[in-house]
């Protein structure tokens, strides 16, 4: 087990000051009614204006090199900023994927031209990304993707469909995982490649899929023989699998895996503090203990990323535990409605609670299911 350690990382004074700075910014935005705190805001609540503002504060692409318009700050600084934004329920969905994973993929695998043209826009909060992994017939079994890119003169031809791409309808680009050659019999992970696809190209069509709450964030994207330039290939042809695994560590380890519904918990406590003091301290204590542990683990992973490590397994731990925590949290609040009936909760709190209840099943699906997380962990334990 020693290989799954989460070394304890202290929050320095500089980080605490940054935290205060972000908090003041958020308070001001709230006072000016620039946003309404919402549940699951990193998926559901997109505001290109707010993203642009964050960009101008230097809080997007924080760790990117200055050469490409980045801020050359640490992964820990980025962690603090994202935590504050999530905890306040701010509308961060527009830039979330670009800032979290796509920018880093381009910096790692893109060519100079791509870095120069795209990274500064991500940092400014003016360029958004969607994830192109799942397909109608490929979900958890990602290596079975059928979307394919064929080499043509001076470029590639892209053919296939991607599905469940959150925010593709407002995104400028999608990083698409495709087959560039058939899988070998021994290794299904061979022959996959990643492409950087401009969603405004001809023959790309993005169609919304309302989710069970009736909202639109999901999309299905059809690539009907889209002609791509040579340099749309991101990284190395045939190395798409290892590239995508690295990307998933960024996707799974962050505080959005346990702070998606934090605004609900905090509003609930603020509303019912007097009753909780009498009969709810144990329940609240339990939630605090779990949440604080998750924060420590996720912060520790940020420091691993900072040191250039690839904490894919640790990310699976955080995602699995974070998903469980959020489900327990909503369930704990639900049971409390035994004491104060739901219809007597303030309407904003009722809305947050109902939104959370409906959306909570998705938290252990998106970014890899519970079953996939447990499989990853089992593999590392030597059981598979």
């Amino acid at each position, binding site marked *: 087990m020693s290989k799954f350690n989460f070394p304890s990382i202290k929050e320095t004074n500089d980080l605490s000051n940054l935290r205060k700075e972000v908090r003041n910014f958020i308070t001001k935005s709230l006072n000016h009614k620039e946003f309404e705190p919402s549940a699951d805001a990193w998926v559901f609540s997109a505001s290109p204006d707010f993203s642009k503002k964050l960009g101008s504060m230097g809080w997007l692409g924080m760790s990117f090199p200055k050469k490409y318009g980045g801020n050359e700050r640490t992964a820990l600084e980025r962690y603090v900023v994202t935590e504050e934004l999530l905890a306040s329920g701010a509308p961060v969905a527009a830039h979330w994927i670009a800032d979290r994973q796509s920018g880093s993929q381009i910096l790692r695998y893109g060519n100079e031209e791509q870095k120069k043209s795209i990274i500064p826009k991500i940092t400014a909060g003016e360029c958004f990304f969607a994830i192109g992994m799942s397909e109608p017939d490929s979900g958890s079994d990602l290596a079975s993707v059928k979307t394919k890119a064929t080499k043509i003169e001076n470029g590639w031809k892209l053919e296939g469909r991607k599905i469940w791409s959150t925010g593709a309808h407002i995104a400028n680009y999608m990083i698409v995982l495709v087959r560039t050659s058939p899988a070998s019999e021994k290794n299904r992970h061979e022959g996959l490649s990643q492409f950087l696809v401009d969603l405004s190209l001809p023959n790309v069509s993005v169609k919304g899929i309302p989710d069970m709450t009736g909202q639109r964030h999901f999309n299905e994207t059809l690539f009907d023989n889209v002609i791509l330039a040579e340099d749309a290939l991101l990284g190395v042809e045939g190395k798409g699998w290892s590239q995508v695994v690295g990307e998933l560590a960024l996707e799974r380890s962050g505080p959005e895996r346990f702070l998606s519904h934090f605004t609900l918990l905090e509003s609930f406590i603020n509303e019912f503090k007097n009753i909780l003091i009498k009969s709810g301290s144990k329940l*609240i204590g339990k939630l605090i*203990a779990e949440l*604080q542990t998750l924060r420590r683990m996720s912060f520790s992973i940020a420091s691993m990323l900072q040191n250039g490590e690839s904490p894919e397994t640790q990310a699976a731990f955080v995602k699995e535990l974070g998903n469980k925590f959020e489900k327990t949290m909503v369930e704990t609040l639900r049971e409390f409605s035994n004491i104060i009936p739901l219809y007597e909760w303030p309407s904003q709190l009722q809305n947050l609670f109902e939104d959370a209840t409906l959306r909570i099943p998705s938290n252990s699906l998106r970014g890899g299911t519970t079953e996939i997380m447990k499989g990853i962990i*089992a593999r590392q334990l*030597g059981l598979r």
Partner: protein
Amino acid sequence: MNEELGIILETTSKVLNKHVDHKLRQNIDNDNSDLINLWDEIEQIGLPKIAVKDKFNGSGLPLSTTLPIIKLSNNIGAPIPLSETILSNYILSESDINPPSGIVTYAIDVKNLKIIGNEISGELISVPYLNLTDKIVFITEIEKTKKVILIKNSREDKELKKNFLSEPRYNLKLNKCKILYIKPVNLRINFKQLGAIVRSAQMIGSMEKILDLCIDYCSQRKQFGRALSKFQAIQHQISEMAVELSASSAALSTITNSDDFYKNKKDIAILKIRAGAAAGKVIAISHQVHGAIGFTQEYELAYFTRNLNSWRNDFGNESYWEDELGKDFLENNNQNLWEYLT
């Protein structure tokens, strides 16, 4: 990890691995020469006084630094009162009492204590390893001051407790027992908090061992023509244990890597809550995947799970600390939750 600690860990590991096997665990008595030899070597490498001040001939390491050593000892499953002696001696030394040599234990709780002159009567509850020592430390309030008391009880009025624990534990009636030392307590955090930290480190060491036992057993044991570890249902259960363990370890490293953990009492509560909750799951899952063999005395799993059952209840169970933590947040400040957490 600093270099000094690394060397101590390596030496400790050598000594324990040389002496500890499952047979030793089944004969925890003071006429077991193997056990006495093991303790002699533990003394030689200075572990009992590792957190004792220099002026009492100790190593003077911070208590937080000794946690990896305690964890290691219970990972190997050493049936000796190492954590009890380290903690007892630490409490004595901090309160300016020169710790005695040899094994020292403590009473987790006390009842109806009365002091007349230099003699004490009453009950000591839950005293680990009283079969190996007669030196007992406990803390009680006398005239509104908390006092540390050290006694040497040579009389045979102890009663072996039947409990979940693999290790011996006693209740003891004191009848005009002579007090060796009594001094005001000088601790930055209370006995319950200290005990909670140490027991958590012990639980985590044991849970790491249990996880290894599960992986080994399930990889070797075949049913329906394949190793148990190849069944997804088994893989997912063991993964869940690993997740619980990793969260507990993360909570422990917050304390271990901090020189001033005394200042943050929240982290102590969180550690005991997290480790106690993990222990519950680890006990259940490890027995489930082992089947009947895990339910026997001859196989070593139960030695570790029985200890977990006891330690998760010592010094406050999860409910106790959840309540404390919840109250600390709800009652003692006007912060909102996010401010409290950050």
